[in-house]
Structures are given as C-alpha cells and as structure tokens.
C-alpha cells in the first residue's frame, strides 16, 4: 500500500464534497484481489486503496454508459492510465472538465490534476517509461527466428484463445460501439475459435493499437489463457516510434499516427 | 544509370566515383571558381564536356591535356557545382588514366615527376622526407637550379630532414604498392 493512501482518500472526499465530481473511480481490496471501486459519496472513500497490484486500467470504464452518465468524475491513475486518458482526449472520447486525475505511482500520491495538468506531469515526469526488458528480450528472440518458426510460435500462442474478448474489455482503447469482429455483412474476421480466425483477430487487434497502445498491460493481465499480447503491443509501439517518431498517450492533441502522414515517411520497402 | 550510354571516360568516372558526367550542363561554374584555370590549356568545364563525348579525339584531348595535371584538387568546383557533381574526383580518374596510358602532357611533366618522386620515397621508406624527395624530384625533372638557395635556409630552420625515416613495416608498404600496381594492370 502506498504510504500516503490517506491523501488519496481525502482528495477524493474533497472532490465529492465540493461537488467537483460525481464519481471517484479507484481501487479497493477484495481478498487478494484489487477491484475497481466506484465511490459516489465522500463517506465511502475509506475503501479506496492503491498499491502495485492495482494493474487494471480504470480508463476502460470511461466508455461504459453508467460511468459516463456520472461525469464529471475522478480517476485514480498511474502513468499508463494517464496516458490512456491522453489518448481518449485525443480521440475525443473525453474532454477537459469531464475527468479529474488522482495521480499515483509507486512512490505515492501526486495530487489532483486536470487533463492539461496531467499532460504536463506525464511529459515532465514520465516522458520515458522504460519498456520491460524481458519483453524486449523475448521480442529479440522471436525476431531472430526464421519465418516458419515465428509462424509456428504464434500459432502455438494463439491456439488456446477462446475468443472471450477479455483483452478487448480490459483495454481503454477498445471503445468501439461494435467491434469489427462482430460484423457479419461482410464477415471481417471469423468468430470461430480456430487458427485462421484467431490469427486474424490478434493481428487486427494489435494493428488497431498502432499509435494508440499505452502498454498498460491490462489486456494481457485479463487474458485467461495467458496469451502474450504485450509482445505484439510492445512491438507495434516500438515500430511506431522508430518509423514515425511518435509515442502514444503523451499529447492530448496528438493527430492519430495511423491517419496522418509525412512526406518523407520511410518507404524503402516500396519499389 | 543503366539506360545511359557513357563514353569510355564517362564510364570510367562513373565506375570509380559514381558520378554521371552527362549530368553536367556546362554552366562553367567550375571554371569560374577554379584558381588554376588560368594555367590550364582546357578549362575544367571543357574537361567535363570532353568526357561526355564518346569519340576517340575527345578522350585523347583530355588525357593529353595539361589541365588535368594543373588541377590542385582544391575542391572549389565540387563545392559549388549546381549539379552536385564532383569534377575534382573526375580529375583524379583522368590523371591516373593519363599516366597509365603514357599520355601525360610534356608541359606538365614536372608535376608528374613530383608525384612519382613522392610515391617512390614513400614506397621505399614508408614516409615522405623532404631531402630524399627533393633529390629524387630534381633528378627526374631535371630541374636542378630552382630553389637552390632555399635549401640552406630550410636546414638552418630545422625544416629539411636529410635522413629518410624508415618505418618498420616497410615490407608491408611495398606489398601494398605492389598489389595496387597489379590491380591497375588488370
């Protein structure tokens, strides 16, 4: 538990008391789990908790009608969640004034911020979040494989996928009204949990994260089958940064990476 | 480049430097800026022009010219060429060829003699030392009397090394010279 949990609680209580927000979205402890807490009354803030086990990305709740109807609201947000909020702002899903941030990280509570303040904090304090080194190692290993080996590796990884879409549900970026996997005229992606449908689903899910994924890890945490989704996410984020010098979730006014262009974008592979 | 038909000289320049002499549009900026142009029998732009032509006469005229030897390699032409060509590098190619084909202009024999004296000194000792270089140059150019008064002064200033400094890896240097000579003959 972070040292200054009381500060989070009192900040939340103040926001609710002053009527600045109608809802505080945070975490609470349930047994060994950390689950979302929806606090609407100042006297309930005592349940709010925060520690490193709070991995769920609460920004994902911002698309839910019952949550949206309680705006303005406050969210307990670690840096990745803040980045999600930046993305959601850039994609016009939330606007300044609707969401207040209770900023936290491993060190503790860092105050109450509006979205502009959050952007500033992110760029000043968390401009470089080092990717997990084990992810980079694994990627390097995969990239060193032959195409056949890579194909086999991924078919093994995707094979257990039951298409439960928990990954989608956990992701704040997956805010489509209806996911394309559910389209049937025409059917974009086979919904049967077998190899080609799974392959297409995971490719398109990863591709739809290009220029957007903040690497919070919620999708992978949510996956009951332990599919290493973060490998794909990190790979895409790395490529986007390499190719387009763009890093996701730092600029609330960012143009979409896929959806903008530069004349001198690289094209050495196009003949 | 595959579609361009190059003259023999143009092709040689392209091979060694990657430059396409046909891109030269004869603006003359190289000539305009060349500090040595007034000592040349062909201007730098004329040299470039002749390299574009595929007749034997053009090649002869270039390789027998004094101009290619008069180039000091100062790179002013290359620096300012609006077509971003490298005439200075072309000159290197042409000099090498002129020497190899024994076409060097008699008017510029002294320059060639100097270069040869220089390389001979390096080939034998690994380094250049003024006295052996000057001695070799004077003999081969038969230019005995110029600057004779300068030598004692240089000695006095400690600027004329009499003794050649011989490096340990002289055999390596000889091999390098030999291999390069073999490559050139091919």
């Amino acid at each position, binding site marked *: 538990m972070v040292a200054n949990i009381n500060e989070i609680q009192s900040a939340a209580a103040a926001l609710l008391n002053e009527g600045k927000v109608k809802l505080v979205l945070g975490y609470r402890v349930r047994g060994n789990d950390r689950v979302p807490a929806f606090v609407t009354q100042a006297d309930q803030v005592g349940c709010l908790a925060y520690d490193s086990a709070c991995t769920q990305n609460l920004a994902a709740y911002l698309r839910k009608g019952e949550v949206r109807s309680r705006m303005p609201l406050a969210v307990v947000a670690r840096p990745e969640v803040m980045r999600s909020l930046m993305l959601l702002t850039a994609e016009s899903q939330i606007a300044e004034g609707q969401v207040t941030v209770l900023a936290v990280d491993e060190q503790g509570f860092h105050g109450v911020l509006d979205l502009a303040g959050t952007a500033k904090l992110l760029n000043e304090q968390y401009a470089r979040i080092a990717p997990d080194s084990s992810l980079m190692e694994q990627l390097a290993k995969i990239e060193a494989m032959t195409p056949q080996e890579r194909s086999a590796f991924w078919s093994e990884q995707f094979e257990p996928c039951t298409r439960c879409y928990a990954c989608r549900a956990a992701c704040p970026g997956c805010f489509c009204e209806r996911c394309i996997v559910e389209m049937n005229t025409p059917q974009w992606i086979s919904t049967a949990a077998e190899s080609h449908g799974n392959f297409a689903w995971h490719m398109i899910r990863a591709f739809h994260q290009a220029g957007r994924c903040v690497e919070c890890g919620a999708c992978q945490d949510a996956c009951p089958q332990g599919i290493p989704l973060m490998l794909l996410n990190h790979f895409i984020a790395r490529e986007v940064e390499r190719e387009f010098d763009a890093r996701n979730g730092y600029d609330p006014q960012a143009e979409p990476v896929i959806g903008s262009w530069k004349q001198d974008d690289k094209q050495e592979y196009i003949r | 480049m595959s579609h361009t038909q190059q003259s023999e000289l143009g092709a040689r320049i392209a091979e*060694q430097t990657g430059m396409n002499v046909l891109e030269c549009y004869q603006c003359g900026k190289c000539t305009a800026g060349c*500090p*040595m142009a007034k*000592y040349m029998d062909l201007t730098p732009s004329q040299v470039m022009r002749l390299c574009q032509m595929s007749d034997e006469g053009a090649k002869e005229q270039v390789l027998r010219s004094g101009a290619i030897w*008069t180039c*000091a*390699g*100062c*790179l*002013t032409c*290359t*620096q300012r060429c609006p077509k971003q060509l490298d005439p200075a590098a072309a000159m*290197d*190619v042409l*000099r*090498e060829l002129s*020497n190899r084909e024994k076409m060097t202009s008699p008017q510029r024999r*002294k*320059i060639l*003699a*100097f*270069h*040869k004296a*220089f*390389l001979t000194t*390096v080939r034998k000792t*690994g*380094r*250049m*030392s*003024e006295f052996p270089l*000057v001695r070799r*140059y004077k003999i081969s*150019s038969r*230019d005995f009397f*110029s*600057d004779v008064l*300068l030598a004692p*002064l*240089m000695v006095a*200033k*400690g*600027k*004329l*090394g009499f003794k050649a*400094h011989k*490096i*340990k*890896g002289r055999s*390596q*240097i000889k*091999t*390098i*010279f030999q*291999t*390069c*000579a073999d*490559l*050139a003959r091919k």
Partner: protein
Amino acid sequence: MNSIGYYPGCSLSGGGIELDLSIRGLAQLAEVELREIDDWNCCGATAAHNLDHNLAIALPYRILALAEKQGLGEVLAPCAACFSRLKGTNVRLERSGDLKAKMQTIVDLPYSGSVKILSITEFLNRLMELGLADKLPKKLTGLKVAPYYGCLLSRGEDIVSDDAESPSAMEAALRATGAEVVDWNFATECCGGGFSMSLTDAVLDLSNAILADAKAAGADCIVTGCPMCHSNLDMRQLKIQSSGMGQYDMPVLYLSEVLGLAAGMGCDQLGLNRHFIPAMALAHRFDPPPQAAETAEAVSDQRSN
C-alpha cells in the same frame, strides 16, 4: 588524464615542425596525452590519389587499421591533407562494403571503421573545452588575425563540418586569445597546394593574392592550420617579395602557435623562431624577450644616471 591518438604525418617532422611542437605543448598544458600511432606511414598526400585510386585508399587504410589495433578511438591528424585523406577514406569505407573488403585484401589488416579522425581545429576546440580556455593568461589584445582555412579545412562536404563559404572553426579559439579576427575575402582561396616545387609560378601568384588581401584587410598575421599552406605563404613569401610582386612581411602562424602565445609558451617552444617571415617581433609584442626588457631597463638606467 584524457588521451587522443596522434597521427603527426610526414611534414610535421620537417617543414611543419612548428605545428608539431606547438600542438604537443598545448596538449601537455591541457593535460591531454597524445598517443602516436605506432609505425605509421605516409597517407599518400596528393600524390597517391593522382596516380592510383587504390593506393590512395590503401595507405590511409593501413594507418586507420593500426590505430584501431592500438585501441585509439579518436586520432588527431593536424596536417589538413592527412586529415582529408584519412577522414575521406573512412567515409568511403563506410559507404562501400566492397571497398572495405578490397582494402582488407590489399593491406592485409582488418579495420572495422571505428576510428574517428579529428582535424587541427576540432582538436584545438576540444582542448579549449577540456580546460585550455582557462589557461590562456596572455591577452593578444590588438592583434589582428586573418584566419586562413584554405581548401582542405573548408571544403569537402563529407569531411569538413564547417560552412564551406564562410568557415568559422578557428574563430572562437582566436577570439578567446583576445585577438581580433579581420573580415577578409581570401579565407578559403587556394594557395596552390602541393605545386610549390612543380608549378612554382602559380603558387607564387595565388599566395601573393592571399597575402595582398590579408594586408588590405589590415591583418597583422595570417593564421592557418595546414603545413602545406604554411610553407606556401611563409617560405614562398620570400620569393614573392624578392621578385617584386608585393611587400608584406606578413607572419604566418599556425592556430596552435597563436594559442600557445596566449598560453604564455615560449617562442622557441612554439617553433616561432623557425619561420621564414620573422614572427618573433609579433610575439614579442605580447611577450617581451628578457634581453629586450634588460635593454629597456638599461636605457632608463642610463637616463637616470
């Protein structure tokens, strides 16, 4: 102690000896060790690339390979011609793997391309950063200098990082000495380079024009970084003057000599006594020689008597 690799090149043990002396002096002052490349050879200068394009790369290749073997990450090549040949070789090797393979067979030494070549100006600016700037007690106030870059310290886009038409690599260091940099037109004009012996008349013409412009701009001396330019402007100035082309008595100093003066190094240590056009008088404006001081004292003594 910092250390930098050192490739003196042939002319620094002969005609360009002042450059060697002053560089070593400054390096010592800035507490930078110069590690000379063992058994280095001539870079081929202008002669090699005139006659054999393979040789023109192979000779510098051996030097680079030796430096790499010796573990030298950066190597100073004070002579502008050596610098140009060595760095040019690096550039071309980097561009073409085929060339690298070819050179490896010719020279029979491996070279990965790790050695970085520093020019005289880059090196001296580095020394300034490493503390030399704080060790220049003498202010050369009133000294008007014409920085002369010539060809090989201004041109060659892959090699020189300065502005080719108005280079400025020497200016900061010169200003730090308190000298005044004059605005003149011939900072990048060619002096005739290696034609000193083989096309002397042209060299006299070209060098004369440079000297004339420096004089017209009010310079007290020309400052250069290249031994070839130095010998043309200094040694050949005698002939220029004796043949009546112009009368200049224009000392030609290496940048390292100017810095050495400001650092308070002695004329002999800098090699200023070795110039053809006397440079000592100029030096003595800022560093009166002992006997001159004595004479002055003697004079005043006499008066008092």
